[in-house]
């Protein structure tokens, strides 16, 4: 479904991603882990067109995305929940969700279904988004992304700044999405949890892939994982 071929990303002449390959099939859940500055977010940004790769190719359903504007890529069905959520703070929860419906067809029913899935958002539908707690904002950001009916959902640090109990809740919601066959690409700091949750993981370090594989393989490759991630968390 998604294929990255030798993606390189540079900012102001400094290359931060040195050729990353990745293949993602429909229904798969893949995680990207690695220390801060490893290039994880840059890879996500390259996929959704927020930064143009200096070389390499991004293919989505066989179609090259090179040079496409971010909004066009979003309409093809790639949704990004950015780090720090970025909800529309001065709009209400309901208004935020309306913004998520890119197509806008049958909008009433899709929204209802989303509110069933995220009951807390129904409870707070009329409130301004900046009144929500961090965990609630994260749910709102994910719900907003889902309303665009994405084929691929990418989430940057879903657990960032959340209480341990709230992280459990977010991962329960993500597990529900996984059961329904949602294709997901997650970027996380919490290595142990990500390796456990995802079908496969990429370990990034210094802008390159240092290890990749499923739970068992990464456990066998524990030296590499340890070198790039430190003590398992």
């Amino acid at each position, binding site marked *: 479904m998604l294929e990255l071929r030798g993606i390189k990303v540079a*900012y*102001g*002449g*400094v290359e931060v991603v040195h050729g990353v390959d990745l293949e993602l099939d429909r229904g798969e859940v893949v995680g990207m882990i*690695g*220390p*801060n*500055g490893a290039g994880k*977010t840059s890879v996500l940004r390259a996929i959704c067109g927020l930064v143009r790769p200096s070389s390499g190719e991004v293919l989505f359903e066989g179609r090259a995305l090179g040079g496409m504007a971010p909004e066009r890529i979003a309409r093809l069905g790639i949704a990004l929940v950015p*780090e*720090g959520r970025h909800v529309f703070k001065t709009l209400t929860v309901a208004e935020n969700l309306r913004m998520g419906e890119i197509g806008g067809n049958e909008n009433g029913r899709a929204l209802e279904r989303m509110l069933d899935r995220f009951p807390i958002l129904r409870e707070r539908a009329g409130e301004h988004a900046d*009144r*929500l*707690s*961090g*965990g*609630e904002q994260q749910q709102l950001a994910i719900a907003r992304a889902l309303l665009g009916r994405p084929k691929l959902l990418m989430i940057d*640090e879903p657990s*960032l*700044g*959340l*209480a*341990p*109990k*709230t*992280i*459990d809740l977010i991962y329960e919601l993500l597990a529900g999405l996984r059961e329904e066959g949602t294709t997901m690409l997650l970027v996380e*700091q919490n*290595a*142990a*949890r990500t390796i456990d949750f995802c079908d496969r993981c990429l370990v990034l370090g210094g802008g390159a892939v240092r290890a990749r594989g499923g739970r068992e393989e990464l456990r066998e490759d524990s030296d590499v994982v340890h070198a790039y*991630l*430190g*003590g*398992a*968390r």
Partner: protein
Amino acid sequence: MRIARLRSPRAAAVSLLVPLALVTLTALVGANGSPSLHATVVTVLCNLIVVLGLQVFIGNSGVYSFGQLGFAAAGAYVASFLTMSAAFAALQVPDLPDAIAGAQLDPLPSTLIAAVACGLLATVVGLPLMRTSTLAIPISTFAFLIVVYNVLANWESVTGGSSGLVSIPRTTSIESAALWAGAAVVVALAFKWSASGYRLQATREDEVAARSLGISVTGERLLAFALSGVLCGIGGALAVHQSGVLNPTTFYFGATVTTVTMLVLGGARSVFGAVLGTVALSTVNEILHDVEGGGSLFGLVSIGNTPGLAAIGVGLILLATMISMPDGISGGREVGELPWLRRLRRATRTSPLPAVSGASGTREPASGELRAEGISVTFGGLRVLRGVDLALRRGEALGLIGPNGAGKTTLVNVLSGFLVPDSGAVSLDGVDVSRRSPSRLARAGLSRTFQAALPFPHLSVLESVAVGAMGVGVGRRRAVGVADEVLGRLGMRELATARAGSLPPASQRLLGVARALATDPRYLLLDEPAAGLSASEGEDLVRILEGVLEDFGCGILLIEHEMSVVMSLCPCVQVIDDGTTLRIGSPDEVQADRAVVEAYLGSSYPVAASA
């Protein structure tokens, strides 16, 4: 010993010499050109001084002022009054006091007096205006310009009214204009690189973060506004002594648009940009003006009479620049900061030497306490804090945990002066500080970081941290030493020359910690510094903060969701839930508490912790 610098001497020299060379070149072209070109170049140099005046304020504060030409007008009138012959003065401005009308000063003293007068005027005008918000300043300065124009145009017996003044001595030579312009370049760069200039740039980059470092936004803006007034006044004084005639419209809308365009075209943050923009736009303007009257473009394309071509051309250039180069031709950088030059330097840079330890010295055993009592805060009917107490002793670390939305950040906002509580009191070492502003609290030794990092994106890492020290009044040179020391301690020295905005978010958060430490705080409030750090980076952070506790002797309040960090650093943890304190105790006690597990940690916590 390693001496940290904000820039290499070579980069500083290049940043200064290239704009000076550009000024010299411009003057040489004028001096050897036709009489009309000669006159044009003098005007360009006078404009340049005004544009540099704009750069001092707009470039460093990031706030647009449309009133600076009012100071150029004031400078022009003051200087003209002082140099005009008594006979002409009696004829044109009969009500002007004799002491001024009969002064008949030389060019230099009259220019200097005009400069001082404009500095004073800018201070008086700035006092109320700089208190208005970032969005209100462009409007209120524009209103000032309108007032100045109307006074000049209507007070006939003193200003000559709308018909203006003639027979002003034409004393501004190309040499003197170039010298003044060169001096203005030096002044603008010296200001930009001074402690005051850095404090102002910090307010441009992020006002909230700047205030948290002890910087008074109003005060720094006022200083730059006054200096800008001085430069604009000099530019106006010189310009009028080139043309010999003065009219209130000379320094009104048209001139405002032209000079602001020059600044934006070149790149407002950069002094080099101001010079480049002025020279580039003047050149284009000159070529288009030639063509306007009918003629040929570079002798190739012949064009008929096209009135308005110059104005249209200037407008199009501004549009094209804003679209393709929003930071102007210079990209907002000085010559010594241009990327290709940085790359050259990186190649020859030697590896950093080991840290100079203990430069700031180990403090005497710390005593004192930051105390909050009965803090309550309500946001639009929602009670966010309901009577919370908190006590942070120096030399100790206190963990503050609780569910998202429990009120932790609100409490830090109250402690650091960003929010006035509905009830309750905050005291610092026994002194009540409940209503003090964030900048005053920072100078009193209370520093904080932010969840959202709030970096100064266009400053380098070293500059960002040095601004922290400058904010609490440390001189520039010492501030750089402090910044270097702090960066060394945090293991960020290799990043010193990187732009803060180019760092990944987690490093920006760590940079926030460095910036706060540079204020030499007695109490440090950290809002989720470990967010986005990997496990090993989190462990490093704990080690760093342990060292800070020991060497700086400050008290650390740590808001953090990463339990491994909180539990290993803090001997005491306070749990807040729903605006009240749920529990205070040791990490073991808190982690074993059923209510805490229920509200915050979650039932899977012990499993996750042992994993």
